[in-house]
């Protein structure tokens, strides 16, 4: 899936993946897509929950070789 920006949060523990995702998101324009890669298991439910509470849209979520990838469209 295409994205405007990729955030590599692999190896980072909570709360850093979400803290970084938020920072990146602040720099994107509405409608642009942020791709996030994380390895912290907590991200699997925290990134979708954060996306929902901040009003963005989770387009897709994937897990391969212990790497979680999310594509989020800015509201």
């Amino acid at each position, binding site marked *: 899936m295409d994205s405007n920006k990729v955030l590599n949060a692999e190896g980072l*523990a*909570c*709360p*850093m993946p*979400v*803290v970084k995702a*938020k920072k990146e998101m602040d720099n994107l324009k509405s409608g642009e897509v942020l791709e996030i890669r994380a390895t912290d*298991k*907590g991200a699997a*439910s*925290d990134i979708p*929950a*954060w996306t929902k*509470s*901040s009003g963005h849209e989770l387009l897709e979520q994937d897990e391969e070789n212990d790497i979680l990838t999310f594509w989020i469209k800015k509201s």
Partner: protein
Amino acid sequence: MGIQAIQAKTLAKKVMNQENFFILDVRNEEQFKDWKVEGKNVEIMNKPYFELLDGVESIAEEIPTDKEVIVVCAKEGSSQFVADQLAEEIGGEFFYLEGGMKTWSEHLEPVKVGDLDGGGELYQFVRIGKGCLSYAVISDGEAAIVDPVRLTDAYTSFFEEKNVQLKHAIDTHLHADHVSGGRTLAEMFDAVYWLPSADATEVTFSYQPLEGETTINVGETNIDIQALYSPGHTIGSTSLIVDNKYLLTGDILFVDSIGRPDLAGKAEDWVGDLRDTLYNRYVDLDEQLIVLPAHFSKKEELDENGRVMAPLKELYARNHGLNIEEEETFRKTVTENLPPQPNSYETIRHTNMGATFPSEEEQTEMEIGPNRCAISS
């Protein structure tokens, strides 16, 4: 002023002593709904950390200043982050749970249940974060352990402290909500590992069959543990009568509920056995026996010393699951509208059969969440 770590052990003591404090749980809502720290005088609030990234002003007014505030998250990092912000915004001392809910789930606290004949003692190990209860019978330098969980350190340090040698490790049934520590402990101390044979048809290891009417002795004064076949949660479920005083019911009868027959996928087959155990086999026992279950699900089940126990007589008077007269109503109650199954219960069963070997980390992950072995939680 600032932040301080609080250990699971300290938090467990606070809960068991029914202290009054405040918990700010910063995990996401779904995790919070699934499972949280509970205590009689605990005030708890959920606000996910990712809604506090810009600061804690939005919740500052809801944080009490007249009692201890402990911030809790899944592992630790986010609670530290939020506690820091609280200290900065509000001022004063804030605590965060070291190791988070992961460590909370694994903490075991031994409490004495009572004295046995000839100087023996019975202890209950409360795994407060998960609602698992296990037991140690000690007498004359010997010990037997019942339904131990995989966190064996708590038991080994207890054996050292009491200066006893483990002789018997007993599982009352094949567990579906947590990984058993029975086999590991038996191997460590060269003790006998007991498991009901009807639950062991698929296991890959050798064991001593725990059958009805087996008697296990602990120490020279002969504290006896009598086995009583009591199927229904599983087909092999066996209760233990210790020193003619205590009835260890496994997952068949709890203080506030009864066991569920569906965790091995056989609800319809086993509901009759469960009925027979609760409405016939147990009725024939001495009603003065003190029931000691393998689980609790509500904080109200803990007494003022943090123990979970009640006389059989009292349970026949007040436990709803023992007072369903109609067989058909009973069947429906225990097979329909059951709570969700424990997390990863099938993998846990296979692990306990010795058919799969998850890593420590995977086992921790598998066991996160409540035990859900009762028909209602």
